[in-house]
């Protein structure tokens, strides 16, 4: 099957913004993977100093300028994408399976399981995500990237529980589920082989949208000094370092900030495109 001729791609490409988003996402992933070969000064990632070139405004050599110890901000932004994307993928790799399993169990098994699981979910949803993540990091030992990932995952899974729960509830009385039950299929089989495939369009759309938002929340945490620690080039940390030096060296903050914006925008546009393509509401 030719992907570009399928009806799915046709629906997706109806909105030029979706294509634009896809270009951004592919571009960012490409930059992150091939960072050592693309960036002009790969050695500036670590604890490198070049005081002769410190705090240089954007120029043709340093297109985003240099920071206060002379490191190229463009290079560090590209490496920052590596951290951001890793964070997004790891967080969702933890949160999605937990949330999906809980949602399937609560929705399909029902009764007490439903009551207990959904009340727990409600409690977690009652704490604003960023506040929950912040508190968890605050309570853990010294902040680092690993703790950030754990904290954001803890705050993120309830959304998947709720999404899958709602879908499961709406399809559990369908004919094919009843048929499987009559044939004696196990609960496990029905949940993961019959119901889950029907959740995939919504799930895929939400994961795409969330990749952007997880990166946003992750960078917010590192902005507050609770994420990856120096000298790791983290976008949120870079914005925070520059924020105290406004307005003179505005490029310290603005370019890493825009770098975050671009990647979130990309995932958001692709997610919106998928929403139209699968005709789902997440």
């Amino acid at each position, binding site marked *: 099957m030719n992907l570009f001729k399928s009806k799915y791609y046709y629906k997706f490409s109806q909105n030029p913004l979706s294509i634009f988003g896809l270009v951004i996402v592919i571009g960012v992933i490409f930059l992150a993977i091939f960072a050592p070969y693309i960036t002009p000064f790969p050695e500036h990632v670590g604890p490198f100093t070049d005081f002769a070139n410190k705090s240089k405004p954007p120029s043709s050599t340093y297109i985003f300028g240099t920071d206060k110890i002379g490191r190229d901000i463009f290079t560090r932004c590209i490496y920052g994408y590596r951290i951001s994307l890793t964070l997004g993928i790891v967080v969702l790799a933890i949160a999605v399976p937990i949330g999906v399993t809980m949602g399937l169990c609560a929705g399909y098994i029902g009764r007490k399981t439903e009551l207990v699981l959904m009340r727990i979910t409600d409690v977690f949803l009652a704490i604003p995500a960023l506040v929950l993540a912040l508190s968890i990091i605050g*309570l*853990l030992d010294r902040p680092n990237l690993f703790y950030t990932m754990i904290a954001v995952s803890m705050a993120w899974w309830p959304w998947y529980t709720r999404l899958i729960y709602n879908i499961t509830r709406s399809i559990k009385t369908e004919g094919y589920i009843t048929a499987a039950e009559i044939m004696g299929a196990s609960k496990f089989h029905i949940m993961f082989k019959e119901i889950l495939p029907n959740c995939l369009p919504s799930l895929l759309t939400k994961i795409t949208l969330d990749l952007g938002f997880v990166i946003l929340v992750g960078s917010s945490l590192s902005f507050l000094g609770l994420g990856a620690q120096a000298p790791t080039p983290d976008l949120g940390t870079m914005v925070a370092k520059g924020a105290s030096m406004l307005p003179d060296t505005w490029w310290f903050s603005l370019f890493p900030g825009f770098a975050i914006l671009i990647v979130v925008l990309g995932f958001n546009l692709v997610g919106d495109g998928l929403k139209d393509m699968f005709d789902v509401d997440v």
Partner: protein
Amino acid sequence: MSTAQYFLKRVFVSIIVFFGVSIVIFCLARLIPGDPARIALGPFATKEMVEQLRETLHLNESIFIQYKIFIQQLFQGDLGLSTYTKRPVLTDVITYFPATFELVLMSGTLMILIGMPLGILSGKFKNTFVDHIARIISLLGVVTPSFLWAIILMLLFAFWMPILPVSERMNEMLDPPKLVTGLLLVDSLIEGNFVVFKDAFLHLILPGLAIAMPAIGNVARLTRTNLSDIYEKQYIEFAKSYSFSEYKIATKYALKPASIPTVTIIGLDFAFMLGNAFLVETVFVWPGIAKYGVEVILAKDLNGIIATALIITTFFLIINMLVDFFVLLLNPRITITD
């Protein structure tokens, strides 16, 4: 179900959730690896000091007893001592919460005042130039981190075009009004002090806007979708065929049903805004509970962290409850179906 029953049920559910939240936060604070007393005191404290703090925090008891003590003290208004400010946490909360409350209310107002009209313009003039501009604004609102909004707004309106103040709640040169509610706008009005009122209002604009931007985008996007759906409904066609004025159709028949989904998610938007307050208050040196929260987190002050998380969540629960009642006013059918 009658309205009163619905009301009671909603309040009851909120109280249950509040206890759930207190258990979650309490367990997080106690079950994490490492000794909370050691973390709070740092690596240089002596064994005796750690043991003494463990005693005062009741850390040697079982987790159930600890939770019981925690809840008892909570209802006596005792949240413990802050190891960061060396004051009772309750005093800190009372000092810092009003600033955040005022700021988030400002953001909520901006969210409605900017988000709704933007969405209405978009939905009314769908697929025109106005619509495209409004949609770009709301999309950028959603995808831009609020700390970046804070920095952009600060650069634009405080440094490059110095028309608005950048930090704190009011000008240091002015005398603060007598403390009544802790909300500067209200306190200055009570005193009739319009100079302070204007100053405090100007200080609120930039941080308020930075917090509200993502919510503005959300509200505008949702209003647009709903309004354009409503405009395709038969009763709008009917009203048109009766030659009701465009204005009357828009305000009386289209806007009310279109605003229900928007109002329903306003609670959720407040969750985002309360989270964003942590970022924006830090940038604008806003002396609120969120900035205090960041400080106690960095200082590993257990009581401070628990109190901040609890107060913010309680605030969010109350807002959610109010939003639900408001939705009920807009759409009384809910009581029958739910």
